[in-house]
């Protein structure tokens, strides 16, 4: 067990190392001069040299990378080219928005996806299965930004034209100060996120459930006289949990790195929106910071998921 965890930790560190090298060298080989970006077009050559010296970009690339890495480990990600503020706090400030969006969305997509998958599997081949399958196909095919824009149009703009405000057009209110407004502002983003993600979970649950329900121990459970509901929710779902947790961990981690599209559509100032703005501004330290943060989330979630296995599946222990 400890050996397994150590392996995972080493792989995680490897992922982060590769990722940091990838973004770092990417910007080194890419065209564009950071000094020019900071100083603007009117800067003299002497000023540019001074800025390069301050940034440390006049040193050899490997030295730069090493110093970047050693500072990054202690949480120092450098300064934004845009407003010269430290990168780490800029990113951290954006996390609550993204976290609210992802966790609320995750609850919702599990609440939709799992029952949908179970229903589909239970009545496999029947009408309810067809409805479930149709939901899965449409959900998987719906591009997030199309769904977001359509729901904004239909649920915000049309009611507003009719004279009442059903949902706000976007924006974010802090949970700590205005919990009700917080939820109200996030209903549409949550739903948009949940509807596209629920399809994945419905498909996964359905497929796994169909496999599991043919097993002998399910027949035994039925033979014991347990109700079908109990057989499905207690014996069947138990076996489906492991792949679901794997998927959930991966998805939450991926999304915490920035729910880029939904934040963009609903004007939420989360990590994803920060990444998009940084790309538009060519603010490289921020981009590097956000990519690394995304990597950290993924590595952590992989390890948490592995720990969950131990909890869920006695065979792993």
């Amino acid at each position, binding site marked *: 067990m400890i050996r397994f965890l150590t392996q995972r930790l080493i*792989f995680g560190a490897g992922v982060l190392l590769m990722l940091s090298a990838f973004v770092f060298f990417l910007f080194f080989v890419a065209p564009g001069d950071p000094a020019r970006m900071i100083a603007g077009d009117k800067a003299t050559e002497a000023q540019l040299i001074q800025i390069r010296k301050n940034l440390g970009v006049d040193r050899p690339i490997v030295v730069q990378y090493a110093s970047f890495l050693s500072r990054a480990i202690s949480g120092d990600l450098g300064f934004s080219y845009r407003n010269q503020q430290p990168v780490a706090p800029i990113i951290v400030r954006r996390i609550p928005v993204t976290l609210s969006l992802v966790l609320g969305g995750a609850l919702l997509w599990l609440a939709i996806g799992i029952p949908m998958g179970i229903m589909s599997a239970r009545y496999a081949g029947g009408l309810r299965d067809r409805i479930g399958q149709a939901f899965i196909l449409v959900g998987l*095919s719906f591009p997030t930004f199309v769904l977001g*824009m359509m729901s904004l149009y239909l649920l915000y703009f049309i009611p507003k034209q009719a004279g009442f405000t059903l949902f706000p057009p976007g924006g974010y209110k802090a949970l700590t100060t205005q919990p009700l407004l917080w939820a109200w502002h996030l209903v549409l983003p949550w739903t948009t996120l949940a509807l596209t993600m629920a399809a994945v979970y419905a498909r996964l649950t359905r497929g796994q459930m169909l496999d599991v329900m043919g097993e002998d121990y399910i027949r035994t459970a039925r033979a014991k006289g347990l109700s079908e509901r109990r057989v499905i929710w207690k014996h069947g779902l138990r076996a489906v949990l492991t792949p679901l947790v794997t998927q959930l961990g991966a998805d939450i981690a991926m999304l915490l*790195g920035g729910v880029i599209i939904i934040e963009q559509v609903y004007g939420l100032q989360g990590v994803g929106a920060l*990444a998009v703005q940084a790309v538009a501004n060519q603010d490289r330290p921020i981009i590097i910071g956000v990519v690394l943060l995304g990597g950290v989330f*993924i590595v952590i979630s992989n390890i948490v998921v592995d720990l969950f296995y131990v909890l869920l599946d006695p065979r792993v222990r």
Partner: protein
Amino acid sequence: MNDVATSDASTQADVVQRGSLELTLRRLRRDKASMIALCVILAVVVLAIAAPWIAALTGHSPIEQFRDIGLSPAGIPVGPGEQFWLGTDQLGRDVLVRLAYGARISLLVGVFASVLASTIAVIVGTTAGYHGGLTDIVLSRLMDLVMSVPFLLCALALVSAFGPSLMLSVCVIVFFSWAPMARVIRGQVISLRKQDFVQASRSLGAGPLSIMIVDILPNLAAPIIVYTTMQIPSSIVFEATLSFLGMGIVPPTPSWGGMLADASSNSLYLVAWWLVFVPGTALLLTTLAFNILGDGLRDALDPKSARTVRRFRLKSKGASKR
């Protein structure tokens, strides 16, 4: 394979020998959803091919701005009507013509990126699965690595470093899409390489490359076809997403994602619904059609797959002895 498929079944006597291709096509043809999906895909292909004719027919080029007749005096786009069948966008350009040209980009990127990703996946997956050992460990870790990377963020970083372009979009899509399929192929190859016909081939003196291509590759046809088909909608959405974020196709070249991005900037679509619903529906229908076709192909290529087996569980249990 081909002559079996083309030999006309009806002219022959009662017993007809059918190749696996023909059987697959027969199963597929019976699946109504797949046939409708195929029609939708064909319609999009026709739209893409006919783009210049549509432009000629309407007299509007995809990048021409009709600021006088295509915009209201207040600068608001004109809705669908006689002059502009699907309305105009914020610059007074014809949405229908742009939609047709955008279909070219979507299909081109979708199909090209998917085929490229599949090719890489097959090469890497087969190599890893067949050779095993150190090769397998290295390649599998590589797949893990690619899959455990926040791909949209990395795509953004890549695009911001090199500037958006069609070629870069394709490269980014390919780079982040090959790994899951390679993993599936690897799994299949591992089980295939232990089979008797591979052993037989090896005992006849066939080399690894020959075994991989002659013996193993044909057995991978089903997963390759299904995964490539399923990859197409993902690639199309990926491209549209990049363009939507302003990091894919460079304007003024029309692309569906770019059209949606234009609509979204300044929330313009709230006063011009067609700017969202026209390209949005086109995008949705295309991805939906490819996904349905992929599902149908999977069932047709592998009649023992979950859906069919379950539905006819009792009946088929006696028939197919597996």
